[in-house]
């Protein structure tokens, strides 16, 4: 029976690894040492763990709001351009595309004493979020001619892309029978950062008495900041592989902290909470920032027909524009904040009591079933993203645990997720997937997440 479960699980990994995922439903899903990465204050019941390099924790998330992949790529014999135009019409500036992937390179931990568990490791992360700059997209796609009098807004440009490595060490400490707290220190090494936010300004073309048209750039203030994208010799990075080789302390460095706790109100009611990635990265190497700021009104070239005072109108126009809308390219250092996450869960356990061997050759009582809810928040450039999840956990045996979730978030009000954690001997295997319904037809799923890992655990 166990082999059959394992076979199913391996199949699931093979099938799903090409898809996508999100780690949040793994929060508060016990029995795996990787829980410590989502809550450094999680309780541990083992004496050591070793992550299988590369496989100890892998997660992938792809989410879109406002449109689905099927809107563009469904095999329906419709012209792609028509579908693209429909999507462009459908989305608004609050919609976004989010891609996140994390892969553990190294992960391990050991018990320092009965109360204290130390864990450490290194992982790489790719995180991209871009909101839909609908105005700018329509300006470039359709031009301004169909949209006289429309103020195209630059404030809709808001995006952030990061490739980084994270070296971390954490401690989980049992304070008393009710409270367990923890913290993790992270050293970030960013090999790539591109970000643009807090932009403002509009471009409007409208009819005017001075000339047929007037173009007006109002309150423009746009900035793009990059690090790792352009080398000191002014060349774009040609080999993407370099981006990953710099993630181990070779990039721009930063510092971050995770905090977490577990608190038992009663033996059956447990609260867990964590704040992750409260930190920053200081970008000083291979930085390049671009900005433009100002106001400008253009009515055209006003010919004055003064032969005694010939003018270079075009040069005057360009000089005037440069004067009123100065653009700047700098290599100044800048600070980028990490997207902080906040997790909290309340769980009520019930049903048959099981007994589990713990690190100190003691046995601890656990319940076979639990229900609860959890909230997940991640700080994003425009506004935080929230999700609310209710869940049911059940232990199929002492070594097989499962979790079923229903999540409401920006993507959908019906995201059904599921997770399983097996322990076979010293091998702990876990896998979680968010949006099982979406798996049936990925093209119409706004968001699908996937997370799995294999670790060696010594009780």
């Amino acid at each position, binding site marked *: 029976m166990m082999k059959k479960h394992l076979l199913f699980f391996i199949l699931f990994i093979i099938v799903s690894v090409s898809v996508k995922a999100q780690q949040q439903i793994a929060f508060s899903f016990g029995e795996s040492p990787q829980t410590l990465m989502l809550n450094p204050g999680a309780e541990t019941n083992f004496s050591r763990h070793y992550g299988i390099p590369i496989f100890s924790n892998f997660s992938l998330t792809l989410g879109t709001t406002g449109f689905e992949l099927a809107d563009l790529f469904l095999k329906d014999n419709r012209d792609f351009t028509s579908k693209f135009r429909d999507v462009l019409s459908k989305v608004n500036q609050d919609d976004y595309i989010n891609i996140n992937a994390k892969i553990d390179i190294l992960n391990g931990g050991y018990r320092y004493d009965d109360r204290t568990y130390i864990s450490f490791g290194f992982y790489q992360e790719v995180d991209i979020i871009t909101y839909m700059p609908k105005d700018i997209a329509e300006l470039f796609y359709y031009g301004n001619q169909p949209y006289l009098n429309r103020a195209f807004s630059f404030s809709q440009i808001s995006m952030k892309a990061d490739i980084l490595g994270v070296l971390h060490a954490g401690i989980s400490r049992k304070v008393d029978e009710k409270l367990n707290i923890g913290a993790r220190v992270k050293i970030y090494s960013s090999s790539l950062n591109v970000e643009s936010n807090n932009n403002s300004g509009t471009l409007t073309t409208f009819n005017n008495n001075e*000339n047929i048209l007037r173009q007006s750039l109002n309150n423009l203030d746009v900035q793009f900041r990059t690090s790792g994208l352009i080398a000191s010799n002014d060349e774009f990075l040609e080999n993407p592989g370099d981006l990953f080789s710099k993630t181990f302390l070779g990039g721009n460095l930063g510092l971050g902290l995770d905090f977490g706790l577990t608190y038992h109100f009663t033996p059956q009611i447990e609260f867990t909470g964590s704040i992750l990635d409260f930190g920053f990265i200081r970008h000083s190497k291979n930085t390049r920032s671009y900005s433009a700021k100002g106001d400008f009104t253009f*009515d055209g070239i006003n010919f004055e027909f003064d032969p005694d005072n010939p003018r270079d109108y075009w040069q005057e126009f360009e000089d005037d524009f440069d004067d009123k809308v100065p653009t700047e390219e700098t290599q100044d250092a800048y600070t980028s904040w990490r997207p902080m996450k906040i997790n909290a869960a309340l769980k009520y356990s019930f*049903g048959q009591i099981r007994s589990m061997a713990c690190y100190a050759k003691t046995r601890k009582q656990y319940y076979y079933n639990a229900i609860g809810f959890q909230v997940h928040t991640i700080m994003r450039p425009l506004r935080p993203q929230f999700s609310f999840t209710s869940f049911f956990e059940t232990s*199929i045996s002492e070594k097989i645990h499962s979790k079923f979730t229903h999540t409401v978030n920006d993507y959908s009000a019906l995201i059904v997720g599921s997770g399983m954690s097996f322990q076979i001997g010293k091998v702990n295997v876990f896998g979680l*997937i968010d949006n099982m319904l979406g*798996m049936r037809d990925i093209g119409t799923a706004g968001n699908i997440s996937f997370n799995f890992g294999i670790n060696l655990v010594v009780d």
Partner: protein
Amino acid sequence: MKFTSKPLVLLFMVAFLSSCVDNLDFDQVDLDIDPIFTSPLVFLELDQNDFFDADNSVEITTVADISDFTTLQSSVVQDNLTQAIFNVEVENRFDRSFRIEVDLLDDNNNITYSFTDYVIAAGNLNYTSTTRIYPQSSPGFLNSTRINVVVSILPSPNQLDPDIPKTIKFKSAGIYYLSF
């Protein structure tokens, strides 16, 4: 209560194993991008004094001015412009007719495109004209870097009086069709 595992495991696996992207085709990307941009061009306003010499004694029949105009030299325009439209509006408050010649020139002042002369009748306050240019049919057009405007007041029995205010306003805008 011990939960029965088999249905859950089955549900779990069915969801994973039945995931499919077969109904998607990522090779179908063939996007037409055909934006249309518009911008103001040259405008001018002349009054009766612009058609007299410094002493306001001798009538000048022609005035001219020229400007660089490098919009067409952008690589985006050079590579992707399929047609351009030039709209002109003239408001003539003189009791004299005008001819306005607009030529596009290259760096050496050779004419690359010559618009049909605009002839505006006396007192015509709503003159409009539209010219459509296809770069394929006018190969010199994309070499244009300057715009030259010549305004001529046409002969008439009505003599100009420097003390009687008259104006002529010329306005223009370009519309550029791009295809990527």
